[in-house]
């Protein structure tokens, strides 16, 4: 009996250790070029994913996460990416999207574009770039099925690294307000003693929360 209690306690300790290690370490840095922007009544912000990079593209999940976080958690008036892309079609497509605030200023010398931008009320654009990559992995697990049911035994783990950058532009003043970079790493585990228990490190969502929080330090709603 005593032996069984000790085994259970040991398992609990191992479980707690694993849970605590399935955490994410993130580092967020902010670089300001200008003082923060104020979102006046009727103005909106749009979060766009950069798609020019051939080797990687920002995951739609990450763009959606930052969008939702700014809209729902921080209460900023954010416009869906697809809506903005359609309203300004085709000037924010990967082939045509301006890569600097100077290029944006040059593009908006076209009065038709400038008028459309004023009409739709989108004042700030947040450009997201980066990707979550899978790092080292290891461990092994074996599973079997017998007359009494199935079982698994072993441990698997893998690392994920989320590196993102968010550049914030003021499209009325053609200014780059600054940028936020985040680097989040996390290790996920799947220990299995009969039943596999996945302990997934929320690397991307930690990066998303970090970026969204910093963006709100750049942009705030007019009182």
């Amino acid at each position, binding site marked *: 009996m005593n032996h069984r209690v000790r085994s259970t306690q040991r398992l609990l300790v191992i479980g707690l250790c694993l849970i605590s290690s399935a955490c994410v370490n993130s580092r967020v840095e902010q670089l300001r070029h200008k003082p923060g922007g104020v979102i006046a009544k009727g103005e909106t912000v749009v979060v766009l994913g950069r798609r020019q990079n051939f080797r990687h593209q920002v995951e739609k999940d990450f763009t959606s996460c930052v969008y939702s976080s700014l809209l729902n958690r921080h209460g900023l008036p954010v416009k869906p990416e697809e809506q903005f892309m359609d309203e300004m079609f*085709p000037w924010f497509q990967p*082939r045509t999207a301006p890569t600097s605030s100077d290029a944006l200023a040059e593009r908006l010398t076209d009065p038709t574009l400038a008028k459309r931008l004023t009409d739709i009320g989108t004042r700030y654009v947040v450009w997201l770039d980066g990707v979550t990559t899978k790092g080292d992995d290891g461990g092994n697990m074996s599973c079997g099925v017998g007359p009494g049911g199935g079982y698994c035994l072993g441990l698997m783990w893998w690392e994920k690294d989320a590196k993102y950058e968010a550049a914030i532009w003021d499209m009325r003043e053609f200014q780059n307000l600054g940028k936020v970079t985040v680097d989040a790493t996390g290790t996920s585990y799947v220990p299995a003693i009969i039943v596999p228990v996945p302990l997934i490190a929320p690397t991307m969502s930690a990066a998303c929360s970090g970026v969204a929080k910093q963006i709100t330090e750049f942009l705030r709603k007019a009182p």
Partner: protein
Amino acid sequence: MTHRRKALLSPRTYIMLLAAMLLLSGCTKYVVLKQEFPVPVMQKHPYTVTLLLEDSLRNYVHEEKFADEADWKVQFGIANVALYTQMMEGMFERVEVVNKLNPNRRYGTIIKPRMADYQLSTPTLSSTDYYEVWIKYELEVLTGKGTPVTSWPFTAYGRNPKKFGAAESALAEATRRAMRDAAAAVVLDFMNEPAVKAHFQGQSSGTGSGR
């Protein structure tokens, strides 16, 4: 004496049959494009153009067979019509859309898009996480009387990350992105193509036809 009745199929045969059915069901993947495209935001060029959308473009179907994975069939349906109609209406002041030319009529400058090539790549083929699409279009420009002016080929590209169990929609999205890229290419470069520019400038000075 009792005889145990033998099952019709052994468990192994069942599994093999099931695997074969799954494989067969994944033999050809169908993609039907139903996209709509926005009208480009730009200052319209002050010309009349005739957009000639022939049946070969309207009914374009791409079929691709791969040795080690499912075959693909991509039906463009109305997507090409929607893309070019919207695009030209945003670019030019007056646009007439026809599916064939009447030799007894006069037209504005005729623009005839043609699909020269469509290529796709799957995550398995490229060992990446993306479905990729390349579309090569060719815009033939003819005077209002049907005399060829120039032909402008260009390639558009689109890609979309793979999603488990959603290969068709991932390829459809990659194709949609390629078509939007095509619109961006036309809006950005078509009127700067020397022969096209010269043709429309000639119209402006009254020497060309089809204005």
